[in-house]
């Protein structure tokens, strides 16, 4: 669920834009480095971005009857690292605003921060940490996707509570957490399971690629 166009006051739009800008700029720098080393990775990045967009436009069946969509954050972060994923997420969010009326231009900064920075970063840390601890990558990717998805919504709650601190910041935060984060738990589990299914197939068919990207657990490589 993206924060929609015009939902945030101007000050907060600008603040989130500035924060996100720094991270995305670093991501672009990294992409430039990758592309200079291996020029053929540009197409891979573009196609992965398209995959993220497509994944987010697929409907995930959810228990509560509402429909949500997977973000593909966890997978992207595990494959490419958080900074590169932030750049891809920026383009994906721009496309979502312009092609699906999902999210918006003024809230782009805030959405990049929650979906493109917090989510992938958490997923990446979880994934790297678990694989370092010799846990199978299939289990690690589940927790990466699950926590990445969940923390995205926790970040969104924080952003909304900052913008609407009524009556106090902490009270507003608790309320937003209840609506956004708690209802998101089953969906996050769904995304985790889906990512595991994708990951299994990837491992079965393209083990060399995963190895080249450095995405496999040390004992599986």
């Amino acid at each position, binding site marked *: 669920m993206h924060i929609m166009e*015009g939902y945030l006051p101007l000050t907060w739009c600008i603040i989130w834009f500035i924060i996100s800008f720094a991270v995305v700029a670093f991501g*672009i720098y990294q992409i430039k480095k990758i592309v200079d080393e291996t020029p053929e990775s*540009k197409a*891979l990045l573009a196609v992965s971005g*398209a995959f993220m967009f497509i994944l987010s436009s697929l409907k995930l069946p959810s228990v509560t009857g509402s429909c949500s969509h997977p973000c593909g954050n966890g997978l992207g972060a595990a494959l490419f690292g958080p900074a590169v994923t932030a750049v891809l997420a920026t383009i994906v969010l721009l496309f979502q*605003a312009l092609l699906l009326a999902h999210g918006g231009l003024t809230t782009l900064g805030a959405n990049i921060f929650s979906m493109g920075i917090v989510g992938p970063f958490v997923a990446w840390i979880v994934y790297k940490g678990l694989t370092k601890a010799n846990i199978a990558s299939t289990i690690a990717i589940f927790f990466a996707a699950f926590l990445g998805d969940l923390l995205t919504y926790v970040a969104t709650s924080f952003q909304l509570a900052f913008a609407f601190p009524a009556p106090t910041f902490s009270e*507003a935060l608790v309320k937003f957490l209840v609506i956004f984060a708690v209802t998101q738990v089953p969906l996050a589990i769904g995304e985790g*399971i889906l990512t595991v299914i*994708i990951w299994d197939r990837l491992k079965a068919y393209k083990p060399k690629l995963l190895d080249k990207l450095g995405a496999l657990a040390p004992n599986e490589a």
Partner: protein
Amino acid sequence: MKFDMDYIAHNNELTETNPYFKLFLTAILLIVTLALDNLYFDVFIFVVMSIVILAIAKVNYKSYLKFLSLPMAFLVITCIFLIFFFGKGDVIYETGIFGIVVTTDSWHYGVYTFMRVMGCLPCLGFLALTTPIAKILHCLGRLKVPKIMIEIGLLMYNTIFIFLNEIDTMQKAQDSRLGYHSYFTSFKSLGALSSTIFLRSLDKSETLQNSLDSRGYSGELPVYEPRKVR
């Protein structure tokens, strides 16, 4: 299928208008609407931009309503929530259920947020419904957004539509074999679908790169910009 907005953006009376003008107009209007945060101005912008979209760009009113309805449902829910559960100050209205009250503060939050979104949505619609994505990306490229980002964006945009066809075929195939029959099977089908697309996309990216390289790709996709015929 889902991307009627893209089709509309390519087929309306304002498609050929200068994209820089549209981009700047949208940006300025959005900033002004947010900065003023004035109820009357929100209504004014909503009416003016709707007229521009419907009468000047000649976008089908059904498509425009569909564009508005998607965020609208969510907006109404969140604003009702803001009105009833937030804020402090004088109580204006008591519902009598669980001590839920509407206060001056929460009323202010709810109404202003609602109207702000109402003012901003048509501005976004103006850009999204009249300007094809490729043109927006070219504009952004001229405005010093890093070239690599624009390139990836353009390649992504092209790839999305290739994927859409494949997904359509695959989903129909799965559906006709009862792939989305129950909750469990739909998960399995969706997983198979996404991983297959990812594997295919890897092959696609290789082919794409090879075809680009063999045509002398040096990091730029020159696009023919037709001169306006009056």
